[in-house]
């Protein structure tokens, strides 16, 4: 049994595909129950956001996750296997650490993902799908993510997008009072930036999202108005600020669209924030008078968060993640040795107590302080005597160098050991291109 993670993200799949595999909140308990019921799955959780859908489980193999997908979606996602990635063991743990620390996000450093991961674990724990194993992994990932946030500039980088949006709005409009913001796509960063603009005084929020339900929910949250996706071009002229963050692979708004929009606005200036990757708004829009178009990199440069700084911070964050992962993985690998270690400690303590019991009548004659000294002496002796075997067993388990030492210790000391979890697999990532036969490309 070990960690396995199967998923698709903005790196591997377009929004339409991610939406097909997304699990809505209302159906999450059902999905988690189905995942937990999958043969070979000990624990599982589902992380479903705009930018990724991931199934994380402690299973005997990745096949269990493919099997779950087939069963849950009731279809063979023919030809889609290459869009998925599958990680196992340490690679799966590393992926979780990187995602939680927002190193794998569309906009590196954005803070929502940590909350989304916490909510996903909470939902899994409530549904009885997640237990100690996933808790240990996620706790370690959250600690690493918080460390990255506290000790690197990546958090500041993310905030800078929203701050830069407000800064630019001030430079163009003087302020956001009376201004209308149109959010295209309900992605994390776009939502964050739009929410920030509304909190900073924007009067009205319009939301256009392919998924009308999500658009309406977001509009309702800020007292705004949802626009049907097909009316986007007809309604966009109402906005003074447009924030676009969809997963579209082609630009949604061309230069001609923005020119028409400006004509309807009688050339009142418009601020266009394209934080989608790839871009939603054609780059040549910047040539239009009274249209001010900025992409993610432009926004970052407003607040002097240069790419070089970001890359340096990201490199520091990656190093931090590796250190934290190493620490966690040693503990995780050593979990096989835990029963042996506990049994050995208990064995030593039993011996010590038995001997003290044999000498009880003699010890009873001693003054209390001398009895306490004997107690401490025996404890210290046993600790020192067991120190070397305990250390050797723990080290061997952590390094997975010689797991036979566990059996040797049991035999040497006559230990009765409770059944341990099955030793995990090699911890190497499996190529995603090896799904079960039913999921092979073109199958």
């Amino acid at each position: 049994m070990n960690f396995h993670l199967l998923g698709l993200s903005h790196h591997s799949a377009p929004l339409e595909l991610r939406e097909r595999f997304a699990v809505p909140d209302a159906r999450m308990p059902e999905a988690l129950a189905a995942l937990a019921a999958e043969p070979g799955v000990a624990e599982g959780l589902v992380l479903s956001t705009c930018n990724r859908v991931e199934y994380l489980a402690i299973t005997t193999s990745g096949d269990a996750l493919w099997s779950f997908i087939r069963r849950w979606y009731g279809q063979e996602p023919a030809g889609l296997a290459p869009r998925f990635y599958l990680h196992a063991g340490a690679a799966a743990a590393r992926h979780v650490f990187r995602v939680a620390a927002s190193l794998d996000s569309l906009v590196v450093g954005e803070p929502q993902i940590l909350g989304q991961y916490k909510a996903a674990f909470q939902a899994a724990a409530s549904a009885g799908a997640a237990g100690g194993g996933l808790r240990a992994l996620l706790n370690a990932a959250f600690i690493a993510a918080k460390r990255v946030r506290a000790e690197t500039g990546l958090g500041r980088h993310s905030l800078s997008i929203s701050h830069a949006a407000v800064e630019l709005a001030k430079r163009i409009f003087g302020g956001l009072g009376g201004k209308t913001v149109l959010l295209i796509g309900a992605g994390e960063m776009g939502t964050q930036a739009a929410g920030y603009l509304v909190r900073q005084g924007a009067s009205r929020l319009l939301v256009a999202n392919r998924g009308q339900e999500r658009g309406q929910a977001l509009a309702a949250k800020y007292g705004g108005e949802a626009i049907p996706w097909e009316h986007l071009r007809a309604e966009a002229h109402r906005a003074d600020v447009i924030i676009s963050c969809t997963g579209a692979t082609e630009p949604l708004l061309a230069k001609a669209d923005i020119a028409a929009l400006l004509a309807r606005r009688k050339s009142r200036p418009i601020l266009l924030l394209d934080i989608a990757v790839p871009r939603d708004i054609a780059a040549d829009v910047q040539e239009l008078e009274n249209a001010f178009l900025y992409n993610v990199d432009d926004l970052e440069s407003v607040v002097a968060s240069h790419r070089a700084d970001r890359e340096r911070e990201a490199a520091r964050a990656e190093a931090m993640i590796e250190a934290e992962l190493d620490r966690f993985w040693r503990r995780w690998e050593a979990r096989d040795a835990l029963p042996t270690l506990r049994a050995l400690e208990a064995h030593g303590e039993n011996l010590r107590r038995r001997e003290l019991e044999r000498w009880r009548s003699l010890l009873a004659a001693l003054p209390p302080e001398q009895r306490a000294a004997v107690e401490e002496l025996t404890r210290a002796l046993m600790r020192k005597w067991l120190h070397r075997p305990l250390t050797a067993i723990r080290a061997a388990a952590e390094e997975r160098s010689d797991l036979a030492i566990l059996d040797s210790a049991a035999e040497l000391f006559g230990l009765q050991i409770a059944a341990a979890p099955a030793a995990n697999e090699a911890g190497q990532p499996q190529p995603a291109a090896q799904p079960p036969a039913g999921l092979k490309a073109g199958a």
Partner: protein
Amino acid sequence: MLTLSLFWARLALSLYTFGLATALITLAVRRESLFRVARGAVALGFFFHFVSIVETGVALHRFPAAQYSQASSLLAFVIVAFFLVVYRFYSPAALSLVVFPLVFVLTLVSIYGSPGVTQLAAASSRAPGNGWIYGHAILIAVGYAALTVAFAGEVLYLVAERRLKRLPLRPEGGPRLPSLQTLDAIGYRSLLAGFPLLTIGILIGLYWADRRFGGLSLTDPKVLLTLLTWAIYLILLFSRWSAGWRGRKAAYVTILCFLVAAAGWVSGNQTGLHHFLGR
């Protein structure tokens, strides 16, 4: 008395100079909070400038706008007044970068430049209804002052727009500029305020010229350039109102309008306020 008015004018010029220097420094180091020192100096200069104009008027027993130097002084005074009013509404400290140097030059010219022929006094003294011609001078001056402030707003608009269009964006350096919308509003509203005054001023001038000379001399470059300024002014306002002209296009035309007006003003220096008045 004239010596005294010159003293007040020089005091005003000193305060304008101090205000200009302080404005340049505070804006360059982005300490807008200290701009109030510059504004205070200019406001105080404005007061002494007023005293100087009153003293001159009292000494000459007429409104002091007959000579080119007096008209320059009046224009500088009205520009400062217009700036202070605009500042009260928009606090555009950076506008001083364009306005204060112009005020400085005009005041300097009014004190140290050639006074020019006292044509208006000579001409008006021969005609009834002297008040009309002074009304003409004041209204034209206010119209020009409005155009000057609009020009300053539009120049800054072009700078601010260029900063926003140039990619990659850099953290804003140099003087902090008002928002594009504020600069556009300053440009548009200044024009709106100045246009009717300029129009009335021109009409009064036409009326007076008709009464005095039986018509207008179209060979006077100042008249021609003023009428051209008015025509551009009208087209600009109409286009802004009807076709939604704004931004860069409106800025270029406002600057053109200002340059034509400035050419008219400079031509006044070459030929006397109106060359036909010398006939």
